[in-house]
Every structure is written in C-alpha cells, then in structure tokens.
C-alpha cells in the first residue's frame, strides 16, 4: 500500500479493554484486515456512486454503504 497505516497498534491497544500485547505479526495481520475492509468499502462506495451516475465518490455514497459493510464485518 502506498502508505503505512501508522498507529494501528496504538489504536487497537487503546480500544481494547485490558492490556493486550500485539506482536508484529499480529499487527501485520490486523493491517491486512483493515485493508481488506477498506477495499470492500471502497468498492461498494464506488458502485454506489456509479449508481448515482457520479464519477466521484462522495460522503453520501460512503454513508450509504457504511451500515452494510459494518454488518458484514462482524466477527
């Protein structure tokens, strides 16, 4: 990916309830999970924008697909 997803580890640790350790491999895997989610989200948003005959993905498109994606991404 063009950019590292920095501070992921810190975010996860911040959101976790107890003290959790996150080794580097796990962090990589978590990054993979995030990327996968973003990929699917972007794709859905793109489809939505295309439905509305817009070449640009806008916030409204993203909002429209947000709920669906989050539901899908339940563990």
């Amino acid at each position, binding site marked *: 990916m063009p950019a590292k997803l920095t*501070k992921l580890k810190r975010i996860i640790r911040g959101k976790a309830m107890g003290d959790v350790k996150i080794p580097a491999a796990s962090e990589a895997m978590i990054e*993979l999970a995030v990327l996968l989610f973003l990929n699917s989200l972007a794709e859905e948003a793109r489809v939505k924008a295309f439905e509305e005959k817009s070449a640009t993905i806008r916030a409204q498109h993203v909002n429209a697909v947000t709920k669906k994606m989050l539901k899908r991404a339940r563990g």
Partner: protein
Amino acid sequence: MDPPDDLSARVLLRHIQDMEPPRTPINSGEDQAPSDSPLPSGSPLQHGRLLRSSKTQRESQFQSPQNIVRRSLRQKIHQSITRKSLLATKRRTPSIVLRKHSVSTLSPRQLLKLIQETGPVMSPLVHESAPPAELQPPSADPNPPSLQSSIELSGLDLSDPSMEDVSIQKGLSRKRPRRSLNVTAFQKLLKDAAKKRESSAGDNSSLSPSSSTSLGLQSPFDADAEKSGIQRKVPHRRRTSGRSFNAAMNKQQITDVSSHRLSAQNIAEDANFEGLTLALSKLSETDIMNCHTTLYDPQGAVDSSLSVLAAQDKPTASTCQEETQEERGEMAGEKSVEVFSGEDGAATDECVPGSHEKGKDDVNKTEAEDSQPNDDRADGFLTFEIGVRDESEEEEAAVEPQAEEGEAAVEPQAEDEGMDPSQTEEEAVADSQSEEEGVAAGARTEDEGESESRAENVVVLESQCDVEEPQAAEDASGLQTNDEAPQEEEWEEEELERDTRHVGHRAYRSEGGLVMPVTEAREDPTDAAGSSEIGSKGLGALGSNTSLEASPSQMGTPEEPEPSLQERLENEAVGRKSSSFHLVQVSHDAEACERQSDGGDAPAEDAAEQQEEWADDDDDEEDTHYEELPDKTPAFVKQKRIFLASNPPPLTLHVENVQASSSSEALPKAKQKQVRRKKTEAVLPKTCLMSVFKHFAKTKVSADVFPALNNVMDKFLDRLSLDLETYAAHAKRKTITVDDVKLLLRRQGYINDKMPVEVLIEKYLRMEQRRILIPIATSGNVVVPKIKKCSPPLFFFFLNRQSDNFFSGLHAKKFFLPFYLVLYCI
C-alpha cells in the same frame, strides 16, 4: 424622339396599362388621330384612310413593344407640348395640371415628371403610419394638413374605404412604381387636396404638392405624416402636471426619510437588546416628543463643543455622573436621557473599534443626521457630556477637598448601595425615566465616590491602566452579582497581575455600557484640553497616591475595586482617547457590534448580557433605589466589580476564545471548545486513510468523504479490537496472535477454503510484513521467520491441512517440502 431610356420602359408601360384603356396598335391611332391630324374629321374616308394608313403603317411594321412605347410617348409629348404652350403663363402645379386634365389624359411621363418635381423622397417606413393618418384627415377634418398630428391618428381606422384601399396599398408596398392606383380614390384625394391647397395658400408648398400629387407613393398628406414620423414623438407620453410631480416628489422624500428613520430605529433597537431596547426606544420617543434632537436642542451652542468631546476619551462616565447630579432639577432628565441615548446612538452607529477620529466623525454624523434614535442618543450623549463638563470642574474642585473626608463614612453606604447606583445607571439606560433617576443616582454616587476615592481611583487606574482592557471584559461580565468584596479583591489582584493581554478593542467593547458613558462623561465635560487636564490630574493623583495603592486595605475591600475601576476608567479616558468612543459605542451595542463585526466579541456579548441583566434588575429596583443615597463608588464601578467577582474564571477563557468564536457565554464556550477538540481528532491519519481509500476506490474521491470514512473506521476498529481481545481471552492469552486475526478474517468471510490467507497476505501486505507472516526459505536451509518447532504429527497435520487446497498445497510444498525432507531425513 426622346429616347425611352430616360424613362424606364417598364414603368411607363405599367402606367400606360393602368391609366389608359387598353390600346391595340390599331386603337391608338384612332385616339390620337383626331387631335393630331389636321385632317377634316368630316371625311370619313380620309379619316378612314388615315386610320387605315396609320393602321397599315403600324400593321406593316408590326409593333414591337418598344415601338409601341415610343409611339405613345411621342403622342403624349406632342400633347404635352400643346398643353404647355397653352399653360405656359400659369404656374403649373400638379393640382392644376391634374385638375385640368384627368388622370387618364396625363401621360405616364407627365405623371412621372410631376412626381419627380414635387414629391419628396419618402421612406417605406413612413408610409405605413403616415398614409392612414393622412388619409383620414382630408376626409374627416378640414384642418390644414400641417396642423394635424398624424402620429396620434395613426391607429385610427379609416372611415373612407377608398382611402383605406389606397392607404393599405401604400402602407404595404415598398416599391413605389408597382403600386396599382385606385384612380377614383386618387382623384378624390386630389380634389380634396386641391381644395385645401386653395384654401390654405400658406401651407408648406413642398408638402402639399407632394401630398396632392403623389400617386401610389404618397397620400395627399404623406408629407405631414412623414414629417411627424421624422420628428420622433413619444407616442403616448403622459403629461404630468407640476402639482402631481411635486406631490410625487414629496411622497418619495417622505418615504425615504421614514425608511431611513425606520432603518435607523431598527438598528438602534436591534443593537440595544432586551432591556436596553426598551429604554432606548423610549428614549427616542421621549426625545422626539421633547424635541431633543440635535437640531432642536436648546443647548445647541454646546453641541459643537460636545462633538469634540464626544470623540475623545472614554471615561467620561464619571463626569457624566457628576453632572447628572447637578442636573437633577433641571435638564438632568433630558440630558441624561439624551446622554444615554447619545451614547447608545454612538454605540449603535459604530461598533467597530475605529479610530478616534472615526468616532468623532461618527458623532458628528450622528449629530448631523436626522435619524432620530441615533441622533437622540448621540445628542443625549453629547449634551450629557457637556453638562458633565460644565459641572465636573465645579464638582471636582468641590470634591477634591472632600476626597479624604467622607470616604470612610461613605464606604459602607457605597457597599450597600454599590449595586443600586450601578443598577440605577443601568436603569437609566433601560428606561428613559429610570435613566434620569439612574443618572441622578449615579451622579450622586459619583460625587460620593469622587469624594472618597479620587486618589484611589487615580492610583488604581494607573496601576491597572494596562489591565483595564481585560478588566473591562471582566467588568462587563462581572457586573451581575452583588456583594462580592473578597472576590473583588482577588479580581483586583488578578488585574494587577495581568498585563496587557491584547484584548484591545474587545476589552473596550466588553466594558459595561454604563461604564463607558460614565467614563466618557468624566472627560467629556472638558474640552480636549480639559480632558487632558483630567487625565493629568489623574496621573498626578496616581503619582501622589501610589502609597494609597500600596495599602489597599485602607480603603476597605469594597472601595478598592470601585476606585480602581473609576481610576481605571479615567486612565482609559486619558490614555486612550482614540478608543474611548469605541468603548462607548461598543459597550452599548455589543450586539450590534457582533453583528457588524465578523468576530463578535465575547466580551462585547458579555457586556450586552450585563446590560440586559442590569436592565432586568433595574426594572425591579427602580423605585427602591432611586431615593437611596448614592454610594461613593459610582454605579458602574460597582457593577464592574460585581461582574469581575462573579466571573473571574471565565475571563481566561474569554481572552482565549475572544478570537476563536462568538458564543454566547464564556463558560459554555470553553466547554464547547474542549468538546469539539475531542471529536475532531481522527482515528487514523487523514492522509494515510485517504490515500488507501483512493487507491482502492480507483475513481475520484472527494475530500468530504474523510469524516464519514473516519467514523466508519472508528467503528470498525472498535469491533476489531473487541473481537480480537475476545478471541485471545477465550484462548486464555493476553497476546493477540496471528491465529486470532486469521480466525477473525475467516469469520468475516475473507478467508475460506478457496482463499487462503497467504494469498491475501501476498496481495495486500508489504514485503516486510509478508516476510514476517509467511516463512521463506533462504539459503542454507534457513527459513525466515522461524517456524516454531512442533511435534511431527502436528507438523504433518499442518502440512496436510495446507495441502488440501491444491493451490495452498503447491504453496506448502514450496516452503515446507525441504523441511519435510529435512525432518524426515533426520
């Protein structure tokens, strides 16, 4: 023979055809023969011979059209020559010619000549309007054509059908020669025209002949129509009488003035909120009633000087108060009303912290303008100041010796009544009546205050000169509570500690509305020199009274803030002439200031709020406090004190947030800011998130998706972390392993039998991450990363599992085959 070239053959032919009965070559000879030939008509034979001969001649040479034309022309020329010889003496007008000779007898050439001689060139455009107009007048009106306005009649229908035909023809056709004449109509026209020509000899010769002789080109009165057409009259111009015009102008002026005043009033009303609005509106009304405007002020002579003063220092409030005392019985009410109105007006006029000069101009403008509310306020302010000036000197002289005498005695009173005068002051602002009282009360209090604490004020002013601005803000906000002496002390200390925070204009604005007038009143009474004198006095007092400042306890806690406020105000007046006016304006019209200025200062708002509160309080306490003896401390000082005491903490936020936003109050503002900060923090770095999203989107992504994206990611990561933690906890671990995440991915549906995780890893992750996750066999049979040694059965299992999937099996073989071999070798 005349060559036919000079006359177009077509034209002539047409004329001939139209006018003359159809002739055959045979007939033509018969017509012409009797006139031309000298032969005795009696001899039919000869006639017949002639005819025959002529006929034969003609028949022999069969006529070409040209020849026919030529013959006709010749004949006509002969005729015309004979006629001309007869009529040589008489002036040949077309009418005469036509009269004598019917149209039919006239040769086309003759007609054409007449036309050319007499008819002016007419444009096709004129025809349309002219002909109907001109046609009717001859038929309808016997008036001479020159007097008729053809344009006005252009729309009228022609009663005469014959005229209509001609007019229609004339109106429609553009090509003159091609018109077909209605001979009878034309003859009628000619006759009429001839009659009129005879009757009016002085008519335009150019017009009449042309009109009369015009054929298809013109009607008899085309000339008139043409002339009128050229003249370019307004078709239906309303002629307004002088009266109506004047009336309209008056109406307009009235509406303008009223609208202007209304707007001014609206501004004034808007600027003066809630409690203030009432007062100011009332003020304006009363002022109007009493004719206390700039123009009608009995003390008109003073206005000029006031204008000078008004623009100057702020702390005239004290002087105002002083003088209001003396004015009680007299003009006090009026003046105070005017003063406050003037102050308000001044404030309303400008909230922008303009320059001192600007303030001056504004004041002058307010004076000059007829917008009553503003004028009233400005005037009131000015008059108040003047009155203050006149009396302040006296008061000062009287007060100074008393300064140290009645301080102690007055202090308790001042404490008790600290709020009252301040409230009364506000009352004065709020209500016209209460204003007078408040002013009087304030004046009283001011006297006492002056007597007690001139020195103190001076001292404090000097010390807090710089702090005044923030203090002003503080004062504005803090003038709401009563009896906060200890707080006041603390506040004073704070003020002393704080150095010029550049609240600048805002500080000025923040000052209570009454404070400013009071302060300004103090200085306004004197001229520029006078104010400077006061300032110098203040400074001198400061210098002399530094010792006093050092011992704040002497004067008692309540006194300190009051004198300090007073002195501060005075110093303000002295030191900041330029901003004094702004202060007044700002203080009064905090709301207006906010509206006008983009920032909308919190202190100004606070000041406005204070004023509102004062007004509210004042309304309640009008009667009770009116008769109370005024404190030493002026009302504004007490109010300031109260304000400061009540809101010391928000002041910091005020100062901080002054530039930030324009919220209503200090405390909520601060809270909001903190809350806002939390929300706006992003979960992931914006650039990272957006770049990744854009990469995956593969289409244009607008920048406004970031907030939505942020929210989504926030929620996703929340769930992610929760799930991972749960999985690890289920495995009784505190470490989130790769397996946990793999399980998560499987549950999410990204990984299944068909899609191994390694594929995804290879697809999405960077090399370093991939290297961590997927072991790679390197040279020397070194696998990176190290695979943790597990029991062989498990190892097999692991291998087998991976080999189930063909793809993964291949993958496994790649990596694990050497291990397998190695292990089994061992």
